[in-house]
């Protein structure tokens, strides 16, 4: 990273969705591009089907692994309710909420299905957040396995960060097990392509794709 600034990302999802892997791939890519990197998440009982959050920060020198609410450049939500829950971590004007249009109703909450906030994305737009929403699970399913939604989102994330495409691909090559590597590379490409399209961001949130990259 040439500039001195530190990038702060927060990955949120439901235990088992692979938020950790998405964060790890991004951390390794940042490291390969010469950044100092810190990452944190909590293990143990918190992972049993509950919400999971992984903080990732990279740049010239990173002190804290924890992202401060209101300061994240990107909040990556692997699920709608989790994107909503962790949205306050995003910088209110400069931050981006990159979210999977996918709902997992909390299984252990009584009557959760009736109260699920289906309109969460509209709500966040009204709050002034910049949203980039992809049907990552559906896209991954079309590519053979819905569980690759995390990598679809990583592909979309790659368009927002100052890390070269080549480094992303090298990182995926070395990190993803051979058996599922090709499928995951396709998932990454699909997410990257979708996010790079001019209409990817909500029209009212951001005017042009060129406006977003280095604003981060």
């Amino acid at each position, binding site marked *: 990273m040439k500039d001195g600034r530190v990038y702060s990302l927060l990955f949120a999802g*439901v*235990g088992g969705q692979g938020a950790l892997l998405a964060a790890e791939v991004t*951390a*390794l890519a940042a*490291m390969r591009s010469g950044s*100092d*990197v*810190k*990452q*944190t*998440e*909590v*293990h*143990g*009982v*918190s*992972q*049993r*089907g*509950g*919400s999971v959050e992984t903080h990732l920060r990279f740049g010239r020198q*990173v*002190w*804290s*692994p*924890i992202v*401060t*609410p*209101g300061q994240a450049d990107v909040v990556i939500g692997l699920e709608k*309710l*989790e994107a*909503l*829950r962790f*949205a*306050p*971590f995003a910088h*209110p004007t400069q931050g981006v909420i990159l979210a999977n249009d996918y709902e997992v*109703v*909390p*299984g*252990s*909450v*009584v009557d*959760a*299905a009736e*109260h*699920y*906030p289906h*309109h*969460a994305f509209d*709500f966040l737009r009204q*709050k002034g957040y910049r949203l980039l929403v992809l049907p990552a699970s559906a896209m991954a399913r079309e590519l053979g396995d*819905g*569980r690759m939604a995390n990598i679809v989102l990583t592909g979309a994330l790659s368009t927002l960060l100052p890390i070269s495409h080549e480094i992303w691909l090298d990182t995926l090559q070395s990190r993803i097990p051979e058996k599922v590597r090709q499928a995951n590379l396709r998932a990454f490409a699909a997410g990257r392509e979708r996010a790079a399209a001019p209409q990817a961001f909500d029209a009212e949130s951001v005017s042009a794709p060129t406006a977003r990259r280095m604003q981060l």
Partner: protein
Amino acid sequence: MKRELLLGNQAIARGAWEAGVTFAAGYPGTPSTEILETLVHYPEVHARWSANEKVAFEEGMGAAIGGLRVLVTMKHVGLNVAADPFMVFPYAGTNGGFVVVSADDPGMHSSQNEQDNRYLARMAKVPVLEPSDAQECKDFVRLGLEVSEQFQVPLMLRTTTRLAHHKGLVHLAERTEMPRRDFVADARRLSVPIYRRQLRPKVEERLTRLRSFAETTPVNRVEPGDPAIGVVTSGISYAYVKEVMPEASVLRLGLTHPLPAQLLREFCASHRLIYVVEEGEPFIEEFIRSLGISNLEGKDRFGVIGEYSPGRLAASLGLASPPPEFAQEINVLPRPPMFCVGCGHRTVFAALRQLKVTVSGDIGCYTMGALPPYEASHTTFCMGASIGTAIGLERAGQERVVAVIGDSTFIHAGIPSLIDAVYNGSQLTLVILDNSTTGMTGGQPHPAAGKTLDGHPAPKLDLAALCRTIGIAHVETVDTWNRKAVGGALRAALAHPAPAVVIAQGPCQQLPEMKYSARVPFFVDEGLCTQCEACFKVWCPAIVRTDGGFPSIRPEECTSCTVCAQVCPTDAIYLFDAAQAAVS
């Protein structure tokens, strides 16, 4: 020099390997578990899961006296279990370097209490090192072993959750082989009063020498800055201080017991105001105040409860406004953890709920049996407490008391209590949830799992035979996924006029052999389904509702545990294969 992105815990393991450790022991516990799971991959190190932390500590103690460099790991409450040897070992002193990792969990991410183990170290008169990042996690293991050998004292490496579970870049080095130091039979190691009284002054003399060491060790360092505000800090909090107050003068304490009085006096005198920023209890703060220094703020400003973060620090200093709250405007539903798809604990708690019994629970995933929809566990305290608590509840007049404990926890601390239940004539029913692993910490083997940490086959403790040997006449083992069998066994055990044991057996779904086994998912036949809701009441996360109100089973998540099919009154749930065959 090679750099790698390592978890704090992985860095500790790497540090142990590089510093020539050859023996490592512990018991799984968040946030310490990954240390031994990493260390076991180095062939030069013998790493093991012991039956509990006391056993691990004592094995380590023996190995260190025998001349090896030793690492012992546990979570904060694990050291309570090992407190007995921990308090006594410093009298005798070590031979080879001995470092015990105490992983504290401020914020209780995965624990039953907050506990600052620096107080235990002070009580034991043991030095404490607190790293501030992943690199220091590695470096401080070597330093700790060297200090341990220099002063012949066991040493505590204290981590906290965020330090243990954060990743950072770490410079790697090669291993230093350490020759085994000679074992000398020595009266120091005999716990008889005549020797102990001779050793007692030596413990104090050693502490005095360690105090001098604390004044000069480079891990206690001043980073000069703004002369108005000085910050005294340790551990991961140092990183938050650098983030939030980059201009401040900092005294970073890497060795927090014993503390350097002179260094602290000088630092505090040269700044108008001192902030003490430490996660946990006011351990450093109280020491500074005991020196008569009063120009400081600590816990009164930053708080004693929970985990620190840069956001919290900034807010405490009035540098940040609180983040937006949406809860008033939109339903941000909670998503608490729950039993996994196909978890064998479900049937047990469903049956216990139905039986309306008093249940004393224990430490493991099954603490979640206390939460809705089961609400079938009424106490949880600490490892192994379910049985003793049940015995006491029974004496206090509760009828039909059931203790519920996992297999690993039973071996860890349940066996003596069960012996007591027999000896003192209890009538409790004990359910052992036997999932062949230590589940909550991510699946570590134990003495009844049939293999060791390094994956080698091991003699498998027969839990049913053990219970019979203790004197339990009524022991029944059931398939945990068989609802009727589980319910029947519980009723039979409750009817038995003496202590009885039900072993609900079925492997944890997170074990690789379960997770990656080929399974045929179950399927809901909407033609037969009457929407009676019975299957929803299994509370399986794989069962979701369709727009038409029918249950639907997510095929990629279903473990084919059969429980939903067992509760369906119209046999509308069957194997997907059969459904496919019917279609074609």
